[in-house]
């Protein structure tokens, strides 16, 4: 109850300040749009289906790209965690690669894949792959050894051991990494879409810039934030809660 109250106070203050600044016309409206201008843009965007299409296209891309990252990242992370040679060599490389913004891959991606969706997917994968890999590596190491032993003892080996034992056993330790990977994937996607006319949310945002329509730009920004927030709050929070219920304790988050 108290928490809800704090939310209401904070957001109405923020909204009030915005309205006030817009009303006072400290900056001209084409530089600093008003809340109702943004609301109008949002309404119009959904009305003519531009936003619906953009959201659908962007979500589709991020799901494919993130999915590839998760699968590859798990394989890579597991390999690095269970092989001393890989750990010593590739481990360091992975950490240093993480400081590279994924959009730096864009020029290469264009050359390799051409000006199409695959180039965007490549950037998305490069954005989130490292987080997932490092999380998986870490999770595999933190996971109590006894689960692997018990699993092998009960006859699980190879892929079955991975799928039925190692993966579920390490989930509580990798869920925060998976979440971070998703955030990186989402950001990389929007960045890549802004560089290439591609129907996604990023392009809609750039369209607002080209038309000098700052209300539209802010409207799309709000959409991008909202989608990120919903996925985090619904998908990942739900997953964390589910794991906590099963494991009993709050796992390393």
């Amino acid at each position, binding site marked *: 109850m108290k928490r809800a109250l704090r939310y209401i106070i904070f957001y109405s203050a923020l909204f009030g300040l915005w309205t006030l600044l817009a009303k006072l016309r400290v900056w001209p409206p084409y530089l600093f749009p008003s809340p109702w201008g943004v609301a109008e843009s949002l309404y119009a965007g959904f009305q003519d289906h531009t936003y619906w299409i953009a959201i659908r296209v962007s979500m589709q891309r991020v799901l494919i790209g993130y999915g590839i990252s998760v699968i590859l990242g798990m394989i890579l992370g597991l390999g690095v965690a269970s092989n001393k040679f890989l750990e010593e060599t590739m481990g360091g490389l992975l950490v240093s690669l993480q400081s590279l913004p994924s959009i730096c891959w864009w020029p290469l991606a264009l050359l390799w894949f051409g000006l199409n969706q695959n180039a965007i997917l490549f950037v998305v994968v490069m954005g989130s792959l490292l987080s997932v890999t490092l999380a998986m590596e870490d999770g595999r190491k933190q996971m109590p050894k006894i*689960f692997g032993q*018990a699993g*092998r003892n*009960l*006859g699980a*080996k190879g892929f079955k051991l991975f799928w039925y034992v190692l993966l*579920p056993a390490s989930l509580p330790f990798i869920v925060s990494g998976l979440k971070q990977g998703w955030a990186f994937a989402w950001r990389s996607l929007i960045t890549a879409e802004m560089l290439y006319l591609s129907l996604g949310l990023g392009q809609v945002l750039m369209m607002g810039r080209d038309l000098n329509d700052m209300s539209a730009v802010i409207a799309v920004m709000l959409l991008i934030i909202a989608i990120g927030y919903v996925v985090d709050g619904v998908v990942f929070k739900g997953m964390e809660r589910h794991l906590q219920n*099963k494991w*009993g304790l709050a796992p390393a988050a």
Partner: protein
Amino acid sequence: MSANAQPVSRRFPVPIDPSPTRGVKRGPVSVGRGEQERAHVVPKVGLSDICLSYRTQGGERLLALDHINLEVRTGEFLCIVGPSGCGKSTLLHLIAGLHSQSSGQILVDGKPVQGPGTDRIMIFQDHGLFPWLTVGENVEFGMKMKGVPKAERRAKVEHYLRLVHLAKFEKSYIHQLSGGMRQRVAIARALATEPDVLLMDEPFAALDAQTRDLLHDELEHIWRETGRTIIFVTHNVREAVRLGDRVVLLTFRPGRVKSEFPVELERPRSLEDPEVALAARAVLDELREETNRSLEAEYRTGLKPKITSGASE
């Protein structure tokens, strides 16, 4: 002690005489009436000249197990006791095929052990149950790996959960159970894969005394009902005597078979039976020597030698 010796020899079938060996059958392989039969009966589990050396953090090699020779009959309840650091748990891991020995051979039904197999199931001290699965799914796990059809799995889960009195908890998660219940799930999970040999690694060490008593009774009952071969590792001598057909004492580092004590007391036994206490006394006297050596080693170095698992995964 010598004053007690007379009644002891009557009540406790192991002859306790004043000679230094005290009637204990020493040596790597138990000798006696069974020897001739064993010559042509293949033991369920046979260990011959098992050695295992570790690498310590300093880089030197440390001999953990030194020429262990043991034979376990089909259906026997064998208990292994020894001071901490004698490698008794490690020995179980070797039999389970989770690690491999440096030299020597482990035979199960006359066939050498190569890796883990569902004919030998381990029950760990901290149970090793899977927290992401329900009780029922845990019990089902081994059968699922083996590819047992679903209907059969369901029936067996029910059967074995009923055997350990946990039928009502099939849908619970592990963290919702008490320590004793978890160990019972572990036993049910092990039995459900229908192993010939149960390897129990101090399964009751972390439980309170009442729960442990109860689980002793249950385990003895299950063992008689299912006729499994059990190799049970513990540091608790009373527990070993209360449960085992035979108690094997290992020495402190390197682990060797110091002596074997057949326990021919009537079953069902109880931890409070004076016979059990007396038999335990005989084992304890020998164990004390080893415990002292292990304590000495700890005091001398100030800490237990750190061991990096050279032979583990």
